């Protein structure tokens, strides 16, 4: 097997005495769609933040395409081709929708910190941003401040920003959180389309959402992965049923 897109080994994180992530080993292959599910407080978002260097791990390593990410800053990791979205909508609210996407393209198109290019003169930049707006169905909202978009539109924009830079590993943190069923279907459909051929790692609270989408599902409970397998087998796994689905069922009633 070739080098996995993302390789976690012995990953641990404690805040003081509280162990949130207690040793995670996980390989995610290239172009795999991988979902991480688990009940509230299982450490899903923490795991995400460890991978993207928002937090430093207490122990263990994260490798992207075989390269150790230890000690790198978020912006350096992003330049290596890993992009993420956030559970709480994280866009540039005062800038226009178009500008949000254009900012996401700047580094990928090699503009770096240049102050000798005018962004409005760069055709590739404008066209690239417009193409992404069309992909996420926000062309009609192009010139309004992003903060004025509806919640679902902001989530779509966030996904647009995340994929815009052309990263080949995309991490989405609960992209459908707080959405109605129709909105959820719409966003999942969008995710399917825009991550075609890319490695996708997605955190979800609700297993039903990722069932049709994921190639493999990992179940995270109390900072440990108790199962990693295809959706069907994960669903059939008695351990998962006990730890996660049982709890979810309880919560529903």
């Amino acid at each position, binding site marked *: 097997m070739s080098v996995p897109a993302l390789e976690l080994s012995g990953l641990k994180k404690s805040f003081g005495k509280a162990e949130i992530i207690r040793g995670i080993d996980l390989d995610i292959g290239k172009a795999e769609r991988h979902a991480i599910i688990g009940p509230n407080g299982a450490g899903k978002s923490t795991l995400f933040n460890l991978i*993207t260097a*928002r937090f430093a791990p207490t122990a263990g390593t994260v490798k992207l395409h075989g390269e150790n990410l230890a000690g790198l*800053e*978020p*912006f350096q990791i*992003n*330049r290596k081709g890993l*992009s*993420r979205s*956030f559970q709480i909508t*994280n*866009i*540039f*609210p*005062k*800038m226009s929708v178009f*500008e949000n996407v*254009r*900012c*996401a393209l*700047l*580094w*990928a198109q090699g*503009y*770096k*910190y*240049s*102050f*000798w*290019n*005018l*962004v*409005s003169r760069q055709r590739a930049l*404008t*066209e690239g941003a*417009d*193409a992404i*707006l*069309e992909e996420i*169905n926000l*062309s*009609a909202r*192009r*010139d309004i401040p992003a903060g004025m978009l509806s919640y679902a539109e902001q989530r779509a924009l966030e996904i647009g*920003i995340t994929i815009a*830079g052309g990263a080949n590993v995309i991490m989405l943190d609960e992209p459908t959180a707080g959405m109605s069923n129709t909105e959820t279907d719409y966003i999942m459909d969008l995710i399917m389309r825009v991550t075609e051929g890319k490695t996708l790692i997605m955190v979800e609270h609700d297993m039903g959402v990722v069932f049709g989408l994921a190639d493999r599902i990992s179940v995270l409970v109390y900072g440990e992965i108790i199962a990693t397998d295809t959706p069907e087998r994960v669903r059939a796994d008695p351990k998962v049923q006990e730890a996660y689905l049982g709890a979810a069922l309880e919560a529903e009633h």
Partner: protein
Amino acid sequence: MNEQLKTDPTKPAQRMRAGGMTLSLAPWIIAAVAMMALPMIFTNNSALTIMNQMSITIIFALAYNMLLGQGGMLSFGHAVYAGVGGFFCMHLMNMSDFFATIPLPILPLFGGLFGMGLALIVGSFSTRSAGTVFAMISLGVGELIAASSVIVVAFFGGEEGISGDRTYAQPFFGVEFLQQIEVYYLTAAWVIISAALMYLWSRTPVGRMANAVRDNPERAEFLGYSARWVRYYSFVASGFFAGVSGGLFAINYEILTEENLNAASSGIILLVTFLGGVGFFFGPIIGAVVFTLVQTVLSLQTELWAFYAGCLFVATVMFFPGGLAGLIMMHVPAVKLGKWKLLIMPYIKTLIPAAIGILGLCALVEMTFHYRHGATGDNEMTLFWTTFDSHTLMPWLIAAAVTVIGIGIARMTAPSLKEAWDEANTMGGAS
């Protein structure tokens, strides 16, 4: 949503590109022509002095807004970059051999380079984070350098400051800059060039990312940009243009003192920028013009000008956080809807009584000041072209009545203004 999808997404881009060329140049040409024409309207020397001061403040305020408005960095010590740039220019002026070889108009460039040099050093540690940490470091560094002005006398000249003579420079196409009007055109040229460069900066990748980092530094980091480096670039560029304004100050006044460095100057530029409005590029320009007028013209009329400037600032912060520029831009929707005419009468009905009421209030303030601080026996005071005795009851009653009636009428008509405002900003309906 499907319907909207059919619109060609490239069209708005083309429209913006095509419109951008013609529209964005127009204000610059108008500004340049206006700056050339102004001395023909205001010919006396004191008007030129005011306009020079305005120009210098415009550059400084625009530079400051690169931090505050565009980069989200609140600095309490930005005067030092202008000041240090100015002091260096002063020293260059005093190096007679060297100074005789350079034409005066390029001197502000050196001011800019030295301001930038200082920003390169200070920015390397102050831009690590924005917010309170940045504000505190800027305050600390500002005070440190202002304090060293009395310690490093060789450079800052102690309490007297440093003075020089601009006319020792090499004549520039025969112009020796003996007259105020020549300095005016030099300053005006620098204003146009600096403002244009700062505007263009805001359109570059690093300028756009400055906005992004201001809005959401964390998201910017996950787009491949180091928030710290973006802030650093903005800071250094801002230091450069602040230094240019310092160099122009040196040329204009031929003296720099501790006052050019201290916290009061840093505070004033914050006030100017905020008054004009941080959200728009042209905001600080309006702020600089208005504040300089208050500072110069109003200060000739009353000793209490700083009090009024303070009130204006507080009122702006409280009621129009977008500043004067925000106030102007608030009217854009109504103009676009073609309904701005609906606002004229309600404005007249509310604003004129309000203005009269405020003038009445100012009269009360002035009379109180005169009553408390006038020389004993000197009971006469002149206000609004009327001379009266401030120790009699009548003027007080009149001023109080004017205040109450003016503000009362304004309050009565305010609801209909609000109605007209809502109407003017609503789409459709008869107009």
